[in-house]
């Protein structure tokens, strides 16, 4: 294995050891072994900059937003709205009116399912998703289907874990009312051809929701260039806090949608007879939001952009290639998901060793991987397996950790040999 540091496109050396020092948790041990954290696709760790931003907000600024004229409330509002502007720039939305803060990707998708899908769909209409979706992009649409009598149509994948575009085009029909697909598969790492999907859907005037939870940490997302109508992602997979996420929606679509939750902040005027709803984006943000979370997300975006998303992606791609080579060299190991274009996820099974047992053996070695169905049971069913082990890579992982993973897998084979 080459020890040469991977180079960012700009020519600057990507110094992973320096990056690691930004993440205090990476210094801890697990069961007496150094932590090898390979579960960032479930939740990425927070850099000190994020921890400090949240701490600083709670220490000096905490108050409610959009209410009161006192200094703290104004500062909290400025911090919260500043974070919204930070998100807008990050994904290049036209306006902060298009940036809605949510609890995470799941809530973002539910918002669209309820306020767009449930409002507009009925018997004879179809929702088109892919067979790669996370449960968060399946169940909300099943709820819409059950409430409205519309149909849920699933575009199939092939054995490599790639969406079969020919089938997608065939299933995109005059009955299709919305397309909802992942940008990157959480279970397999496959990168979906979202630009192609958007182009095909728009040719039929069908709006597209993209679940970007696994994409934003690894690839530059420009919602305008992409043409996405809705784009959902979570803070905690982008090195930010949990409990904060984003729904981007095109303003004309959001403006025509009714609110989905009622309460404070989403109103202009309330009497017992009628309520006038607030303007975008507040119409969709009922109740006191996760202000500290938004501040943390803003800091996380600053951090990611300070490293450079392209540099992170290049680093992770090197790790993915090394891991693919190292794992393929282990007899009895089968990769699940071998799409041509993959993000920093490697899912696999080992002959004779259940993924749950693998997870326990790896944990004893200090190696944290995800084992299970990854909230994508239909993907597991497709491959006729109950579960996989999944290692996922982030900006702070190293080639040495890839070797740690391979060594721990061989250790598992010794235990179960």
């Amino acid at each position, binding site marked *: 294995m080459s020890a040469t540091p991977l180079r960012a496109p700009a020519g600057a050396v990507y110094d992973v050891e320096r990056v690691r020092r930004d993440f205090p948790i990476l210094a801890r041990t697990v*069961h007496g072994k150094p932590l090898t954290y390979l579960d960032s696709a479930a939740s990425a760790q927070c850099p000190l900059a994020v921890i400090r931003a949240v701490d600083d907000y709670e220490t000096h600024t905490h108050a409610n937003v959009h209410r009161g004229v006192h200094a703290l409330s104004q500062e909290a509002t400025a911090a919260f709205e500043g974070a919204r502007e930070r998100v807008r720039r990050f994904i290049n939305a036209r306006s902060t009116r298009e940036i809605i803060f949510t609890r995470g990707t799941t809530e973002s998708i539910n918002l669209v399912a309820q306020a767009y899908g449930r409002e507009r769909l009925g018997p004879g209409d179809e929702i088109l998703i892919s067979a790669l979706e996370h449960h968060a992009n399946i169940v909300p649409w099943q709820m819409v289907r059950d409430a409205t009598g519309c149909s849920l149509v699933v575009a199939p994948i092939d054995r490599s874990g790639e969406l079969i575009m020919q089938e997608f085009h065939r299933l995109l029909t005059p009955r299709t009312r919305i397309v909802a697909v992942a940008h990157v598969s959480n279970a397999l790492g496959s990168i979906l051809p979202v630009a192609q999907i958007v182009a095909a859907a728009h040719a039929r005037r069908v709006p597209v929701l993209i679940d970007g939870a696994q994409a934003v940490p690894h690839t530059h997302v420009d919602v305008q260039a992409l043409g996405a109508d809705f784009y959902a992602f979570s803070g905690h997979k982008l090195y930010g806090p949990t409990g904060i996420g984003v729904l981007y929606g095109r303003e004309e679509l959001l403006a025509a949608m009714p609110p989905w939750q009622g309460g404070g902040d989403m109103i202009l005027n309330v009497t017992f007879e009628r309520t006038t709803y607030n303007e975008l984006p507040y119409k969709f943000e009922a109740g006191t939001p996760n202000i500290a979370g938004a501040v943390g997300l803003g800091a996380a975006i600053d951090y990611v952009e300070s490293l450079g998303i392209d540099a992170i992606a290049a680093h992770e791609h090197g790790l993915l290639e090394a891991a693919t080579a190292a794992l393929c060299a282990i007899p009895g190991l089968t990769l699940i998901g071998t799409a041509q274009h993959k993000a920093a996820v490697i899912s696999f099974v080992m002959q004779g*060793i*259940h*993924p*749950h*047992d693998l997870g*326990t*053996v790896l944990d*004893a070695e200090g190696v944290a991987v995800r*084992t*299970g*169905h990854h909230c994508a*049971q239909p993907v*597991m069913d497709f491959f006729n397996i*109950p*579960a996989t082990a999944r290692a996922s890579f982030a900006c702070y992982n190293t080639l040495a950790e890839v070797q740690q993973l391979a060594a721990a897998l061989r250790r598992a084979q010794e*235990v*179960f040999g």
Partner: protein
Amino acid sequence: MELKDLYRDVILDHNRKPRNFGRLDPADATADGHNPLCGDRLTLSLRLSGDTITDIRFEGKGCAISTASASLMTEAVKGRDRRTVNELFSQVHALLTQPDAVAPASLGKLAALSGVREFPTRVKCASLCWHTLNAALDHGGTISTEGGNESSAEAAR
């Protein structure tokens, strides 16, 4: 936390060569057990004489702990009546969950499960088969370690 405590030789052996694996047809009682967190599924089929288990088989896919636990259980409960099965389950449950439970001699090879309690996430793997057996003896059907629409195994205890 020692891996060797969890994956003892008896466990590894029963995982590699599960005893009483398969299905009884016809059967007097059956039940399915499901652990949705790890995808483990097992089906128990029993022949009964009164409330005594005269024969028992299990089939399904699961981790080493759930497979070995089911295999050990089938050996332990064959020829036992309901009261004895309940006692065994109580003893196994104590062994899996109580920090200083000592395995009574009556548990026999089931004592190999005592290492599981050091691994809290794996306790459900070991207890799934026992909850499934209870379901088979009570009413049949499907039980799940996670509740929801399927009846909750932990709540049933």
